[in-house]
């Protein structure tokens, strides 16, 4: 199994994800250039955080049109694993691989801090090492993480089990309207969303920044380890049956 980290111009968490995959998890990993339309046989593709094309038009809008995204779409349609983190999540939304859209954070400011997430789906290739309801503490760092969609589509998202992570209190209680716990005002506290097949996940918090004890937090490691092992064991459709 091989993991690929896409490099868009302006990606700035590409090295971070690569580091955790390669050096912490010992996974064969490679960088994928935005202008190539091949994934070089990678089973797991990560769209990293950063500011692809400076986010100058709309976060993720230009990156979604990159040649590599054609290959990512084909990979996703075939059931391959795609993980979008932060800016990568925004790219997935713009590429319509995941429903919904991002607005600027409710307080209109960039926010870098730790948040708590409740695990709403522990049966996905990305989350099978977590427990249902498990609370993770992960860092966020974004200006546009305020997830939004129409009420009907949000209802459908919930009914389909596509909400994977929700901002919560340290005890795991929902606190959708409380900026202390839901930092950006995301609708229904949604922090991570998957596609219907469960093989594409977008999330605002950064698991790769919480994957080493020396950094004081390794809550994110189980998520990346889940994805790596799922990729290896071809558990690709683990959540799809739901």
């Amino acid at each position, binding site marked *: 199994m091989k993991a690929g980290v896409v490099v868009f*111009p*302006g990606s*700035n*968490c590409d*090295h*971070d994800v690569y*580091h*955790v995959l390669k050096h912490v998890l010992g996974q064969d990993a490679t960088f994928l250039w935005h202008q190539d339309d091949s994934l070089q046989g990678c089973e797991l593709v990560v769209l990293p*955080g*950063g*500011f692809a*094309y*400076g*986010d*100058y038009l709309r976060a993720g809008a230009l990156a979604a049109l990159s040649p590599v995204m054609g290959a990512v779409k084909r990979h996703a349609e075939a059931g391959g694993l795609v993980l979008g983190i932060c800016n990568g999540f925004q790219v997935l939304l713009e590429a319509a691989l995941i429903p919904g859209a991002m607005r600027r954070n409710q307080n209109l*400011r*960039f*926010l*870098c*801090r730790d948040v708590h997430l409740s695990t709403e789906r522990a049966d996905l290739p990305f989350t099978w090492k977590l427990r249902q309801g498990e609370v993770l503490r992960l*860092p966020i*760092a974004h*200006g546009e993480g305020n997830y939004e969609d129409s009420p009907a589509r949000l209802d459908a998202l919930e009914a389909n089990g596509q909400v994977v992570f929700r901002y919560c209190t340290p005890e795991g209680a929902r606190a959708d309207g409380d900026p202390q716990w839901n930092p950006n005002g995301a609708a229904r506290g949604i922090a991570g969303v998957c596609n219907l097949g469960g093989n594409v996940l977008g999330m605002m918090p*950064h698991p*790769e*920044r919480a*994957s*080493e004890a*020396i*950094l*004081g937090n390794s809550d994110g490691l189980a998520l990346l380890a889940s994805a790596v092992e799922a990729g290896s064991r071809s558990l690709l459709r683990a959540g799809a049956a739901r």
Partner: protein
Amino acid sequence: MTVLQQEPAVSAETARSIGLNEEEFERLRTILGRDPNWTELGITSALWSEHCSYKSSKIYLREFPTEGPHVLQGPGENAGVVDVGHGWVAVFKMESHNHPSFIEPYQGSMTGVGGILRDIFTMGARPIAAMDALRFGEIDAPRMRTLIDGVVRGVGDYGNCFGVPTVGGETGFHRCYNGNILVNAFALGVARRDRIFHARASGAGNPVLYVGSRTGRDGIHGATMASESFDKESEQKRPTVQVGDPFTEKILLEACLEAMRTGAIVAIQDMGAAGLTSSTFEMAGRGGTGLRLDLDHVPLRQPGLTPYEMMLSESQERMVLVARKGREEELEKVFRRWGLEVANIGEITDTGRAVLVWHGETAADIPIGPLTAEAPVYQRPVAEPSDLAARWRAPEVPQPEDLRGTLERLLATPDFASKAWITSQYDHTVRTNTVQGPGGDAAVVLLKGTPSGLAMTCDVNPVYCSLDPRRGGAQAVAEAVRNLACVGADPVGLTDCLNFGNPERPEISWQFREAVRGISEACLALGVPVISGNVSFYNETEGTSIYPTPAIAAVGVIASLSGLPEAAFQRAGDRIVLLGEDRSEFGGSAYLRLLYDLEQGRPPVVDLAAEARLADLLRSLVAKGYLRTAHDLSDGGFLIALAEACLGRRLGARVEVPLVGADLFSESQGRAIVACSPAALDRVLREAEELGVAAREIGEVGGEALEVRTAGERFVAPIAALHEVWSTALPRALGL
């Protein structure tokens, strides 16, 4: 008539209008042996501006100790370089962007961060940490909320997009900055020891390549503007402020680091202040070469720029490099892959002259050496202020009526309030190196792939410096070293940003001379060389100068990161030890300034030998893993430091101290609070005794309140209440 022939006539008067005085104009005429043309005059005005030439500060800066066992590159390059072990070097520097940030806070602070980041990766190092030292005026002063908001957004947007963690810094407020805020940006990068690049041109015939953004009309004469004071017309200087594009800078970083790996680059320099002029002249000047520039090939944002404008534009995100002849294509391929424009704009020559050709005409032809190496150097008149004795008269110190209330009032001032509103707008975890981010004594980042870490801190007390610049300068260095020691770091070097008023005023030159002396003395005593830095003069508005503000950013190495203490208390039951001695010192103290509006008296004594002993002790205790908490005492004194240690993790403490009343806020130097497990207590006390540092066990961590007993008093403050005051004060003051 050609365009060049239509340019303004050159005279002593036009020279003055762009910042060259009569003497300097004559000097230029002597060097050229003729009258300069308009382009040559503009180039000289930029190169000889205070900002680029350091003409008023040079004679003093020579006093700095610049050598040390770790120093590979001292001042004079884009940034200093120190060896940090395991085959790695750290490259760092701090720079001011005060004037632009006051005129246009968002773009001013953006380009300040952008400029310092380029200085670092120009040397071949990848930036892995940034800090910002900000000084604002009173929050209620005109425009101040806009300035604070703009600066914080600018620092954040640039670093966040670029992908460098802003791990620390300092934010202060004082009315002396009401008309002239300070924005000092620090960046640190790492590189393999044998992969450092220099900005030293060589090899006649080697092509000069231009990479990055196109040249526009922004920032023309920015360097000259930064060398003048503010007045009512300053608002009109907005066009001299550059516009930042962090996305292009990020691309430029990746492309440059990749291009450097080809081995086809001889020299490289970013275009910062005075743009194409300073970058090309400095590279050629350092290498003793000449150069020919073909200005028709400079990529332009709009047609019609004259040579004068091209040479003086400060458009951002541009680099100039000297390539090995015949290998241009290899480099061009790398830059084009990253979507960057590359242009061959000339070549290195052996004439020692800069010849600029445009539209088939010679736009300028000037000798490089005399213009760079022989720039004017001034020994400005120096005068000690006449009221020094009055300023140093010991202040009357009112006793606090209510200790808890006094503590809460101090914690509610912007000076002591939590700065989380600011630091949460900066990405401080990108690059996954941040071991300790903002809020501690020093920030700590991993040196990836090694057991070591790098620590950095940023310090200065402008009130001390205004009362006694020499002592204030020494104190800034001592505090920086103390902060590093609190995380067990051995200092390897420092960079400074010396922010002062108009050096043509004798009292300002005196402040500068004294501050440099104080810094030098402390550097020598504490074994920290100055490896890079920046001087910002003319920080005054309508004749009112800022306080002397020599910001010090020091960097240290932590051999092993295991068992690193924090500035906050971590575990109930830990024993608290106070290190150092109080001398009841209130000169320039926060207590008198914030509560009684009194800035009076000589600042606290800086006993450098005692500071060295304390730093040795702290480093030794940290290295042995004895400490869970180490926090230095600085402005606000003991009680503020103790409260800060409680607030970090909202953990209470019970202490009994021999300090009485106001002495809880005395600012005697050379002190720190540490906490350790009960089992380690004896060893901590014994080692302090051996190293000659006064140490006293004062209490224990735990509970939900801060409880303090002194000789005659006792107070209890619930941590939740203190936290509420401390954490909401800044947003509240900003009206958010």
